[in-house]
């Protein structure tokens, strides 16, 4: 009897192995494509409690005047007078201090339009800090438009250079996710963090402006220029974001420039007829109080600017600026 030939491979098993091979190759191909898109440093998903960096508190402790309001038409004189009324720049800036001037350089606008911090003011304040012995003065902002154009066309670059300060333009690597405790919007949000690593004093400089969404743009809104990412989404909840900006930043000083006020068509303005000579300079350790007074220059009530009261309720300062017993000075 002849033996049967070796059992040929079961055709069913052959078909299965073929299918398995094809499937395996497809899975490998999918895996290869997936690996191509793999991000070893993925964005975080839902915000984690306590995650993200925090900015330091740059406010100074101790007693002493907290607010000065000076009436006059020349920025160099009014800001010096206001600082003198608060004890002089030396009260806030000591020899060796490293100072950050957070300006409003949001738009590539000429100084005449009052849409940005005035270069005269930047130059004066930077010069005063250096004269007080500051080791370094940095001027920065994250503008809406191209940063170089903004700093150049606003005159702020030149003003900084002439005073001996340095401009730090925003760069990708300068942003870090920051979380503000108690905030609903500023959770793990990219903030221009790098300049703050080198400084121990922060001064905000902002013009008084109308704003189409929030009603006003003053010292609290000025911190918007620290935000990165697609920050324009915050326009949908503008009063909350301004409140949280007040929670984000505890500056040494704020300087609210009401020499001219943009009464309408803010925040960009465009026509000199949008401006009114209000001839007022406000310097304060309390941004909320400064803005509460600034509302009067815009001929707005506090109820028209709900972010001021909500910033006060969040502990960022006081809306009752009179309670600070400000020095009121008139200069010719």
């Amino acid at each position, binding site marked *: 009897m002849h033996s049967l030939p070796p059992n040929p491979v*079961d*055709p*069913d*098993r052959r*078909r*299965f192995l073929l299918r*398995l091979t094809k*499937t395996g190759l497809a*899975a490998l191909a999918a895996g290869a494509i997936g690996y191509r898109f793999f991000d070893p440093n*993925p*964005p*975080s*998903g*839902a915000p984690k409690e306590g995650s993200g960096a925090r900015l330091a508190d740059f406010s100074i402790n101790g007693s002493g005047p907290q607010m000065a309001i000076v009436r006059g038409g020349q920025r160099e004189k009014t800001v010096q007078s206001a600082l003198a009324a608060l004890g002089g720049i030396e009260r806030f800036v000591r020899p060796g201090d490293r100072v950050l001037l957070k300006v409003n350089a*949001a*738009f*590539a606008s*000429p100084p*005449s*339009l009052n849409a940005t911090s005035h270069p005269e003011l930047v130059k004066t304040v930077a010069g005063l800090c250096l004269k007080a012995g500051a080791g370094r003065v940095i001027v920065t902002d*994250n503008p*809406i*438009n*191209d*940063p170089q*154009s903004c700093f150049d*066309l606003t005159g702020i670059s030149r003003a900084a250079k002439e005073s001996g300060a340095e401009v730090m333009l*925003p*760069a*990708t690597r300068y*942003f870090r*996710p920051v979380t503000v405790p108690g905030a609903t919007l500023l959770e*793990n*949000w*990219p903030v221009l963090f790098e300049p703050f690593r080198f400084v121990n004093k922060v001064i905000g400089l902002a013009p008084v402006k109308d*704003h*189409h*969404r*929030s009603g006003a*743009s003053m010292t609290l809104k000025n911190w918007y220029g620290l935000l*990165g*990412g*697609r920050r*324009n*989404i915050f*326009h949908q909840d*503008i009063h909350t974001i301004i409140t949280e900006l007040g929670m984000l930043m505890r500056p040494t000083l704020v300087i609210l420039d009401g020499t001219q006020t943009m009464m*309408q*068509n*803010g*925040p*960009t303005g*465009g*026509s*000199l*007829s*949008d401006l009114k000579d209000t001839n007022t300079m406000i310097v304060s350790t309390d941004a909320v109080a400064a803005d509460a007074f600034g509302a009067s220059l815009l001929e707005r009530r506090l109820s028209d600017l709900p972010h001021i009261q909500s910033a006060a309720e969040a502990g960022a300062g006081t809306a009752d600026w009179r309670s600070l017993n400000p020095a009121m000075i008139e200069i010719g």
Partner: protein
Amino acid sequence: MERTQLTGKTETIISIVILTLLVAIGTSVFYRQSFFNPAVLTATVPDRASTAEKDQQDGSPATSIVPLPGSVIPLSAPERFDPETLSDKINGKAELYLSAGFQRLETQRFRLRDTAEAWMELFLYEMGNPENAFAVYSSQQRDNAQPLDVSRFAYRTENALYWVHGSNYAELIASEPSESLQQAMLAIAKSMVSGRKVEKQGVDLPSIFPTRDRIKDNITLIPSDAFGFSRLDRVYTAEYQIPEGTFTAFLSDRGTPEKALDAAEAYRSFLLEFGGRQLESPVKGETASGLMVVEILGSYEVIFSRGRFLAGVHEAPAIMPALELAKSMKSQIDAFITSQSR
């Protein structure tokens, strides 16, 4: 031969495991993707260069978006923005344009050839139609502006020109008030207007508003939510000054008489819902018929429809002047309709 089973039990189990693994991978990817974080979409400085044309190799800006007079040269490359990126240029003001039908923005800076410090920036908004362009023009119109002979709706201030041309709204803003910049800007504006043919120049409805007691050049087009009522959109308004105070006349083309009547009724109901009290008109007769009068919060509203138009008076301090103005508007609307039918 009898067909045998294609797969055995082991093969089936392996297949199920593989499929289950694939489903699990897909599910986990979907789950992670659901936690969208807009902060990280661009957690860096946006690439603004992508919105601007590249300069020429010699460093001079590329093309100009409008013909330039010989005294003016480009200072920067053109930039272009769409509804997604408009706020990258004008920040919080973007909503004003977006709510009015904005489509795109072209901007560019120029300077005087012989004065580097004297520069200007042109903002050219494409709003989709002349009505939208008029809406953003009128809502930002400055008081005490001077007339500008560039187009039907145009004015100038000390350092800027503003005008409407077809579906475009344009702003030309100078770095400082100077005669030489004004001359250059005027030349640019005129060349822009003459170089761009349009089907329809401006809007016609403002001419309906009676001129008596009207505050000059104070006609505005509200694109939406006029007087706090969501159903009132595309409403023209004009301000009037009388001894008792100021008040507003309004006018809106609703398309058909039925829609105009419906809008009038809806606005009347809206006012009554918020505490208004409908009054009987003190004036009788044909010219007063169809006028609905509502007293609310100490002022008077007069509402009516005429043909396809909704019209009336808003926040009048006294009833008789309001009724007089409403009757006058009725006549104007009738004349307008007649002229259009010829």
